[in-house]
């Protein structure tokens, strides 16, 4: 035997999302690197031009430095802009980095594989979008994909508005030299750091977003049943303190904000009520598929994405779906409970796939790319 199932040709797996990038070695159970999908670019003081290419252009010696990992990024620097990197094309991969082979796979398929299924409905609720993708036998059914913009960023926006209503300013930690303890609900008392470099607006916003995202992850909760004022008022409150010392007990707002994900009709800031709640996204997606496979899809609803880690999300989703489906339909939600697995399920699927012996025939080699060009990707990658 040739050493078991994993024939390590030594593959790297990248999963580039809009919030974070996960990267690591195939065959491992979690990515080695997990960092936000932003690049910090310091501008040249003199010409102020923003180089948009990534490091493909070797000739440029402009002294631009790129910062991508979390630690480097959070150090305040002068004139450091924050932007989302361009997606690397295949051209770059093959021609610049000279890799021997590569393969593209849809993240929904990989998430399903990571949960041990080749057929199912993958509900991915990340930062920018909540998407329902039906996967059948390892292939995505493109005509059944339903996308909704109500996701993590929408939650962040609502949290921001809440703080605005409460007249609370969001101060990121980099600005704070010291703070005093204040009683609940009282205005914060803190001292600003001296000698702060002049940071750009984009970077400052980015740091504020980090604060809000922390609040979002700690405090928000989805209620079991459609939001009710009285029920929400009786929920236990959660105490949260902002970096600048402002602290408060949050009660009904905890439930009200995420309700917008499931029932957008009353959510603030949505023009017109044409948005679909998460439950509707799922049922619409399944409804667009052939009736024969619908039981298969409902029997494996895979929940992934960082936004689904909000407390109570899966329970509420389960309830909504069981109400909307016929009673004879067997419904099963698959949602890993560990943070790591739900955020990284696409990466883990890629790791599994790349280490299978039977997968080695599916790589797109350099030779094939040279012969076939971009079309070979369409053909070989499902």
């Amino acid at each position, binding site marked *: *035997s*040739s*050493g078991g199932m994993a*024939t*390590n*040709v*030594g593959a790297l797996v990248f999963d580039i999302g809009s919030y974070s990038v996960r990267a690591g070695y195939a065959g491992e159970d979690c990515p080695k690197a997990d960092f936000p999908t932003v690049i910090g670019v310091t501008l040249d003081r003199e010409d102020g031009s923003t180089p948009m290419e990534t490091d493909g252009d070797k000739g440029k010696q402009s002294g631009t430095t790129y910062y991508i990992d979390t630690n480097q990024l959070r150090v305040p620097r002068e004139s450091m802009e924050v932007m989302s990197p361009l997606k690397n094309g295949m051209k770059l991969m093959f021609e610049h980095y000279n890799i*021997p*082979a590569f393969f593209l796979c849809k993240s929904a398929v990989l998430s399903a594989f990571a949960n041990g299924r080749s057929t199912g409905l993958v509900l991915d609720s990340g930062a920018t979008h909540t998407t329902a993708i039906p996967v*059948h*036998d390892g*292939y995505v*059914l*493109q*005509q*059944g994909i339903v996308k909704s913009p109500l996701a993590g960023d929408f939650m962040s926006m609502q949290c921001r508005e809440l703080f605005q209503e409460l007249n609370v300013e969001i101060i990121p930690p980099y600005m704070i030299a010291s703070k005093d303890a204040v009683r609940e609900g009282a205005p914060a008392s803190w001292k600003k750091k001296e000698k702060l470099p002049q940071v750009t607006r984009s970077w400052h916003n980015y740091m504020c977003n980090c604060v809000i995202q922390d609040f979002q992850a700690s405090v928000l909760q989805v209620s079991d049943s459609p939001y009710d004022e009285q029920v929400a008022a009786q929920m236990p409150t959660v105490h949260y303190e902002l970096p600048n010392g402002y602290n408060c007990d949050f009660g009904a707002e905890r439930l009200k904000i995420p309700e917008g994900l499931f029932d957008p009709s009353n959510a603030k800031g949505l023009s017109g009520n044409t948005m679909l709640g998460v439950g509707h996204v799922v049922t619409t997606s399944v409804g667009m*598929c*052939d*009736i*024969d*496979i*619908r039981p298969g899809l409902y029997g494996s609803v895979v929940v992934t994405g960082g936004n689904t880690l909000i407390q109570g999300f899966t329970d509420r989703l389960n309830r909504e779906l069981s109400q909307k489906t*016929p*009673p004879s339909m067997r419904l099963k939600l698959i949602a890993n409970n560990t943070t790591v697995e739900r955020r990284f399920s696409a990466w883990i699927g890629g790791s599994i796939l790349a280490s299978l*012996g*039977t997968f*080695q*025939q599916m*790589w797109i*080699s*350099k*030779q*094939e790319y040279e*012969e076939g060009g971009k079309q070979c990707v369409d*053909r070989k990658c499902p």
Partner: protein
Amino acid sequence: MATGADVRDILELTGAENDGPISKKDLINSDKKKTKKATETLTFKRPEGMHREVYALLYSDKKDAPPLLPSDTTQGYRTVKAKLGCKKVRPWKWMPFTNPARRDGAIFHHWRRVAEEGKDYPFARFNKTVQVPVYSEQEYQMHLHDDGWTKAETDHLFDLCKRFDLRFIVVHDRYDHQQYRKRSVEDLKERYYNICGKLTKVRAASGTEPKIYVFDAGHERRRKEQLEKLFNRTPEQVAEEEYLIQELRKIETRKKEREKKTQDIQKLIKAADTTTELRRAEKRVSKKKLPQKREMEKPAVPETAGIKFPDCKSAGVALRSHRMKLPSSVGQKKIKAIEQILIEQGVDLNPMPTEEIVQMFNELRSDLVLLYELKQAHSNCEYEQQMLRHRYEALLKAGGGTGCASTPGGDAQAWPSADDIKVESKEQIIDVVGAPLTPNSGHISCSISSVLKTK
């Protein structure tokens, strides 16, 4: 707490003196002069392969002999442990390999044992594909031409089938619906299987009858339509269906009960009739005083009517009065009834058990029970009839009041909120017409039915 002996044991170093657990003496007298061990402590080596904790649990208390027969423990507790470090490492080499399943002959590298150099890539044998037929231009022109499909579209379909291994759902999803027409999954399947069938026929050697898979597109379409409707039912429809099924079950059970009742009554009547016939026959025979053999057959008395006295063919001696005893199956009420009538008629409750008397007394009591049952049945039917008549009259009034008259069947639409009692009584009315009741009420039922029909 891990002691030195434990540590040595864990590391499986060949132990020092005692294998057994440390005694108090050793601990306390460690600085004083060591007392000689009085008795030689028998230590027992634990069976190889048994975990030391397990052994300690079993034999740690006293240094008694473990209650084990000496046995071969090589087969029992041996867990397969990898014997590491025994032999030399088999060398591995970073070697290039080609994958026969790949078409481009790309060369990748991986680690493999030197011993396996040159062997085929083992996973290549898993590369299975579905056999999708390929047709030539000629074949297409001659046999596969179809009005609804152009050659380009057919080629596209077959290309997709090959790529996706005949997963028609996926083929349908990736189908170019803009360039070609909008096709349903059944359309695609139909065209594909049609072509396959034709090709097998054309290519088969002459004289052989090849087996062709026939795809029934019409059936599939109807089936899917049915499924869609089922899937899209509203909860109200589902509830309604369940309600209707429950109602149906109720009606069925009631019907069965009624049928059973009528059957019972039938039996009773039959029993009564046959016994009366028997009596008459007997009387005639006895009047004529002719020792005629009973040539006519005794009509079988249904055994559920009356009392069946057990025919005791007991060996040995038995009292005749035993035959006069009522079997235990006769209920208290019946016993009371019998007693009452016997007392009324002035008959002795326990007559002298001569042969003739025993027989006749049993018959008498059987007849009495039969009579009692008949009376009961009769009064039940009378009561039912009264009740139904009242109900019927009430319904007639109600029906006449709202202005909807007609046969009971037509009334089904008149009661939309199927009120339980009303439904039931309607059913009763229908059934009353059908079922034969006791002779008297049968007369009345006929009249009721005639009334209903004329309405």
